[in-house]
């Protein structure tokens, strides 16, 4: 064409512009179409990868991005009677490290991170470094940290570090009522106290979910949130009053200072409802930290079945009055402080002659109540002890409650009947004792002890309501009033419980000092106690204070337990707004000479075999016949001099003797 002619020297002919353009447009369209075709193919392939992934992809994806976990719904709260939280669950931050990512960092950077973490977390740097250099992809550095601390860690912007939130149990009142509340172990199971007893109600449901997680294994979204909400644990409303609980614990801590006992416990009961306002035990523990020792976890109020000793006497007296076998003014011969029952002899610490029944209570005469027991007989007497709640579970929702033991009327021996009258050979929990005393204050009607009033679901709808429940009438109103009136003399001048007086209120109570049974034998150790009602004229509270083995100062209940009892009683009544009696507000000077009941109440002539040797009793004052019966079959070589009552023995009482060894006794 024309251009080819214009440039003849060019070997290759030049194409026309239009043909070049035409071809260019054509080729451009072909290339464009090819690209669109390729993109369509990719659209299809990508769509297939999205909606029809191969099994291998699904498998790899579910391994990497999903894990099946059992999620536990929120644990319910434990609240006091005014709705204050004693235990609740919060999501608290945990700081963790990925050691694999740390390993990729230069050593000096690792060191500087560790130094910063050590500052933020308040941990030794060596400890931080050690954790950062462990194997694996997840090592916990600190849990339950303050959100501010977690924020500081986040602000370091270190890829290997992160924080996440986990539900943790929190006890805002710390040591308060720790044995009642209990605690939750690392795997979320309730241990001790209400946390254990009502674990099923508190813990809430579990939901098994396939959970999407990110690279660090953390929760991405919460598909189970709805299911978890619906399965939340229930809230437990208790009868515990945080304030009275605090008052009670303070009083017990004073006992610890003054008497250094193995433990001290107290329980405060609202008489009309049977509500337990406080259960306190020292030593105690902080449930926020995992308690190591098992001793502070013991709720002595329900798990200890102790020999109550003299605090048991009001029940014996009440039973005898109820049976019409005696009255407060009846004169009873207390035998001058020593009375033989079979081969044994019962003593009163302070010998009394003929006194009224009221004085038997006031001076705590063992002989007096023993005589009442014989007058009633086991068949009539023992059912009353059951009516007061002894020998049976109270049904309070606390783990490990003991039943206690009341002897069987069919097999009881005379001396056992006598000792039961003043609280030996019978065991009872402090809670049973407090409820028994409350029964006297409640005009003879025994209430079921109430610790939980309501169990609500997470939305406040009650699942279970526990109303105050009368169990049975133990004694008549009249008997109850008379017994309480007699108990009120205990705190009068000359009584054993003068230290339990509370200005403004009349106190009806009873002291107790029991020999502690150790390894099946009575020991030198004592359990000192005071139980009582206040105000005596219209009882509101029944309180029991038990001091296990005071080691400093007096071991008598009237001295070791009564003052703390008075403190608890006074502060609690003031807190509850019970008006004091103006006539009683003038504080009477307390006798310096506190009358004390004593021990041993019974001298047994039985030889005690401790596995290796006989423990020899004190034979002095005993007739020849008793001594012979006691030593019969012991294998000891017995030398006896004179006749009448024993006046001396060699070796003295308490010496261990093995069979074949010699014992000499002189009678006169």
């Amino acid at each position, binding site marked *: 064409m024309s251009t080819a002619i214009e440039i003849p020297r060019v070997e290759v002919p030049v194409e026309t*512009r239009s043909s070049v353009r035409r071809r*260019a447009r054509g080729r*451009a369209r072909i290339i464009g179409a090819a690209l669109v075709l390729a993109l369509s193919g990719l659209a299809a392939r990508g769509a297939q990868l*999205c909606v029809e992934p191969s099994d291998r992809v699904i498998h790899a994806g579910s391994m990497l991005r999903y894990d099946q976990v059992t999620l536990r719904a929120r644990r319910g709260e434990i609240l006091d009677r005014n709705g204050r939280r004693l235990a609740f669950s919060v999501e608290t931050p945990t700081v963790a490290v990925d050691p694999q990512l740390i390993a990729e960092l230069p050593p000096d950077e690792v060191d500087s991170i560790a130094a910063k973490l050590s500052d933020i977390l308040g941990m030794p740097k060596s400890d931080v470094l050690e954790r950062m250099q462990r194997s694996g992809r997840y090592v916990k550095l600190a849990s339950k940290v303050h959100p501010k601390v977690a924020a500081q860690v986040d602000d370091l912007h270190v890829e290997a570090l992160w924080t996440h939130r986990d539900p943790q149990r929190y006890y805002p009142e710390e040591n308060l009522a720790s044995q009642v509340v209990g605690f939750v172990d690392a795997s979320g199971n309730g241990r001790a106290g209400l946390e254990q007893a009502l674990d099923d109600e508190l813990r809430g449901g579990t939901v098994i979910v396939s959970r999407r997680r990110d690279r660090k294994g953390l929760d991405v979204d919460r598909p189970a949130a709805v299911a978890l909400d619906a399965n939340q644990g229930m809230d437990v409303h208790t009868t515990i009053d945080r304030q009275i609980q605090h008052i009670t614990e303070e009083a017990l801590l004073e006992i610890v200072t003054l008497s250094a006992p193995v433990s001290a416990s107290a329980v405060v009961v609202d008489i009309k409802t049977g509500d337990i306002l406080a259960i306190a035990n020292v030593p105690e523990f902080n449930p926020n930290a995992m308690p190591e020792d098992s001793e502070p976890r013991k709720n002595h109020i329900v798990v200890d079945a102790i020999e109550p000793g003299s605090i048991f006497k009001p029940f014996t007296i009440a039973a005898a009055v109820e049976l019409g076998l005696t009255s407060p003014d009846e004169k009873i011969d207390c035998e001058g402080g020593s009375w033989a029952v079979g081969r044994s002899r019962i003593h009163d610490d302070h010998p009394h002659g003929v006194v009224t029944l009221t004085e038997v209570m006031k001076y705590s005469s063992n002989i007096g109540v023993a005589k009442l027991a014989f007058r009633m007989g086991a068949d009539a007497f023992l059912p009353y002890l059951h009516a007061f709640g002894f020998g049976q579970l109270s049904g309070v929702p606390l783990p490990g409650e003991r039943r206690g033991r009341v002897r069987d009327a069919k097999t009881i021996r005379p001396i056992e009947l006598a000792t039961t009258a003043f609280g030996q050979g019978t065991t009872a929990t402090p809670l049973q004792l407090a409820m028994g005393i409350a029964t006297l204050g409640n005009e003879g009607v025994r209430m079921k002890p109430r610790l939980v009033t309501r169990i609500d679901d997470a939305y406040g709808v009650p699942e279970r309501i526990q109303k105050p429940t009368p169990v049975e009438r133990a004694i008549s109103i009249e008997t109850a009033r008379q017994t309480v009136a007699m108990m009120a003399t205990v705190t009068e001048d000359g009584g054993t419980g003068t230290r339990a007086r509370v200005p403004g209120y009349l106190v009806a109570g009873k002291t107790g000092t029991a020999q502690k049974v150790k390894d099946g034998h009575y020991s030198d150790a004592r359990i000192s106690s005071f139980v009582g009602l206040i105000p005596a004229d219209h009882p509101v509270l029944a309180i029991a204070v038990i001091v296990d083995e005071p080691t400093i100062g007096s071991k008598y209940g009237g001295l070791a337990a009564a003052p703390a009892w008075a403190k608890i009683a006074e502060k609690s009544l003031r807190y509850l707004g019970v008006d004091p009696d103006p006539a009683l507000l003038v504080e009477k000077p307390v006798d310096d000479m506190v009358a004390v009941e004593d021990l041993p109440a019974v001298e047994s002539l039985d030889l005690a075999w401790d596995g290796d040797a006989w423990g020899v009793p004190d034979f002095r004052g005993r007739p020849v016949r008793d001594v012979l019966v006691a030593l019969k079959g012991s294998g000891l070589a017995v030398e006896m001099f004179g006749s009448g009552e024993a006046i001396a023995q060699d070796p003295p009482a308490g010496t261990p003797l093995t069979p074949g060894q010699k014992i000499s006794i002189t009678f006169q």
Partner: protein
Amino acid sequence: MSAVPATSLDTARPPDAASETSGRFDWVLFLTATGLAAFGLLMMLSASSQQADRIYGNAFHFVGRQTSALGMGLALSLASYLVPWRQMKRAGLVFYGVVFSLLVVVFFMPAVNGSHRWIKLGFVNVQPSEYAKIAVIVVLASYLSANEGRMRDFWGTLVPAAFIPAPLLLLVLFEPDFGSFLILTLLTATLLVVAGLQKRWIALGGLLGGTAVTLLMLIEPYRVRRIVSFVDPFADESGSGYQVVQGWIALASGGYFGQGLGTGVAQSGFLPEAHTDFISAVVGEEIGVMGWIGLTVAYMVLVWRGTNIAARAPDLFGTLVAMGITTMLGMQAVINLGVVCGMLPAKGLVLPFMSYGASAATVHVICVGLLLRVGLEGGKETVNP
């Protein structure tokens, strides 16, 4: 139209009208590109904020930089409109010189991951190999349009044409930046083909290119691993196939409608390149198959409009520039998505307007600006110098 294509365009409008009106502004292209860029920022925020917050303490670190880069591209595009169409070829030559210098400077910069790709300016890292793509397109298009109709002249046209991109290609190859080298090679080939390369050369080139690519991949062992991982990513699931497997898992967990914007977990560390090469997998995870198809359709629209502009260009230069740009954007999308789908061996190529990469973002905006410019010039039958 197809019967007499050469003249149909000429006669479609009156000659004087064509010289007065300056073609059309392609709103479809403009909106598609703008939409892609905006969508890219959104996805990038989701894909990069965790990492950005962890490393820089600023969740918007990558998004901020990408936005600046896009803005920079916009500014440069507008600036290019100041250059008269007739002066474009000369401007291209200057640009070529600048890019060449930068590609030399790159070798004096410290290597990152064993290659000299970036010039660190503190506030921004410039990647000259991205700009090389524009330089090659404009200068080669300029040369080929100057020699319009002489494509059969092997020594006179074809061999000199090959010398134009060669310096840049070699510099990029030695950085090394194999992905950019591949794109530049494909661009050169595309321009030659559109300019009228004879079919025998196309066949030979295809054969040689295929062989060369195969050989290059076989030379170095890491490329072999990449090939293996692309054929069966599960063969080396935790090694070379890791990214692809993670991409597939992301897509699979997206399903039809996705997990929801911002809720993907691929970017939590499963997918190291979540906000760069594998951002389409994040789209798949968060928006599902709808997002994936939307994305591919957007690139189809880009290619369609670009091809249309190329076909309606005022001169061969315009056609070549438009088609070079269209091919570049389209090929990058195809290769990037092909890698994610496991249909191509892993290559460090960004997904235009979506992946994080400052230089690429700037260059792609400039490219769309140039495309729109060619469209504006379309219909004007300018005199070929």
